């Protein structure tokens, strides 16, 4: 499903954010990516949806090799990957429904499909009652639900989340985690970078520890732990 081979990433300013990463993630897995700040977690995630290209090494997602993927094909890769961020990235002038539908409109789905898929996914994240509200009328947790709904509305095989609970209080974070669990239960692979020790240690999944651009630990059902 996701394979990285000797992935090396050097930013133009000389910072090496990935220093030979090797990993294999199977279909349907739930993987936490933990590690100290500046370790290279976000870089690891960005390379998966080709926001950043690796300097060398191979990244294969759903059988697509990102190293040889032409720029023109990147949009089609992204249609197979849902991405969720710490800061939601919603459009303030669109309401809940429109924010989610947006993701399908720009890939030219039919209005009938859009209506059905958006309503289904809004029910899944529990926002059926708030479809006409705008982001500034929603709590942080609700905004993150919209963002998750948008990431999965096109039924991607992989959902990648970079600190999705980073801006949320503990109770809300648990609610959001429940949604990710639900998505994972439906067979979607999830890769989530997080600093939330409590969550990692409670909802047990595979834990990858990234330090200094390297994977230093990789344990199934592991604990949130790294030497700092």
């Amino acid at each position, binding site marked *: 499903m996701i394979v990285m081979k000797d992935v090396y990433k050097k930013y133009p300013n000389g910072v090496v954010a990935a220093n030979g990463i090797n990993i294999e993630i199977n279909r349907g897995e739930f993987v936490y990516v933990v590690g100290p700040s500046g370790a290279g977690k976000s870089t690891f995630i960005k390379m998966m949806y080709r926001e950043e290209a690796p300097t060398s090494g191979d990244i294969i997602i759903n059988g697509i090799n990102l190293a040889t993927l032409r720029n023109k094909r990147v949009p089609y890769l992204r249609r197979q990957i849902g991405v969720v961020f710490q800061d939601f990235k919603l459009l303030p002038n669109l309401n809940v429904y429109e924010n989610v539908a947006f993701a399908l*409109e720009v890939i030219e789905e039919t209005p009938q499909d859009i209506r059905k898929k958006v309503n289904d996914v809004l029910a899944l994240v529990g926002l059926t009652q708030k479809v006409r509200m705008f982001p500034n009328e929603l709590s942080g947790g609700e905004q993150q639900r919209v963002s998750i709904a948008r990431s999965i509305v096109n039924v991607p095989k992989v959902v990648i989340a970079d600190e999705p609970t980073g801006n949320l209080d503990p109770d809300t974070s648990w609610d959001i985690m429940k949604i990710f669990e639900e998505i994972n239960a439906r067979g979607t692979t999830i890769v989530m970078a997080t600093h939330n020790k409590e969550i990692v240690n409670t909802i047990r999944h595979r834990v990858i520890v990234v330090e200094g651009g390297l994977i230093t630990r990789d344990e199934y059902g592991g604990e949130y732990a790294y030497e700092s």
Partner: protein
Amino acid sequence: MKARTFRRHLRESFKSLGRNSWMTFASVSAVTVTLLLVGVFIAIMMNLNGLAGNLEKDVEIKVIADPAAGQEAVAALEKKVKATEGVLEVEYSSRDAELDKMIKSFGDELNLYRQSNPLGDALYVKAKDPHKTAAIAKKIDTYDYTYEVVYGQGKIEKLFKVLNTGRNVGLVLILALLFTAMFLISNTIRITIVARKTEIGIMKLVGATNNFVRIPFLLEGIWLGILGSLIPMAVISIGYYKLYQEMAPKLQEELFQLLPTTPFIFQLNGLILFMGVFIGIWGSFMSVRKFLKV
């Protein structure tokens, strides 16, 4: 492209026009001024081209025979001139007819020359190819009994020179104006792109194709170009029509003729619209290429 997608692009491009209305106004104004000047310039140049052609066609060589030459000598000269290679036609005008012409243009004081006409008979020669006029004139000048050979070539060359200089200066000005208008459009599009950075980012994140992201901006550029060509098209059409109505009858007997309104006005409008669309696409393309890393 699906019709639905295209409608969406249209909608988005119109929204942008309204959203940065000041920049829209500025760039449309720039295009308007540019195309107005370009249109007037082209109208003038195309009409003068006609004039130059007419003048060229009318180039004549005037051969004045030696006043002392007798009837037969002049007749022989006429025969010889007619036989010269490249000569189309020769028209004989007697010395008295020449004097009449002179009196007509310079006044009755010349009447006193009727007693002893100092002029010679004249031959008006037309060349088959106007560009050969000078060469033919030179050749005729070598024949016996010619007193003077004159032709208007020098004047025409001067006129052509003036026209050419005017055309070059105009072209440089037009290019400068076109660049300014294009730059303003490009700037308007840049502002749109910057204002919609978040939206573009999300579009790319969820897998919108590069063209899908680009097309609304290119359309916006086209609208700016088209909006900017409306006033020039109207002003130039009406202006030229009025001018033609007014001037054409007065120019009937003249060498210079205005080009008939049809198809000229339509051609001119087509050209203005084309230039508007062109600078619109070009302007937005510059910004899209530079600021829309897709």
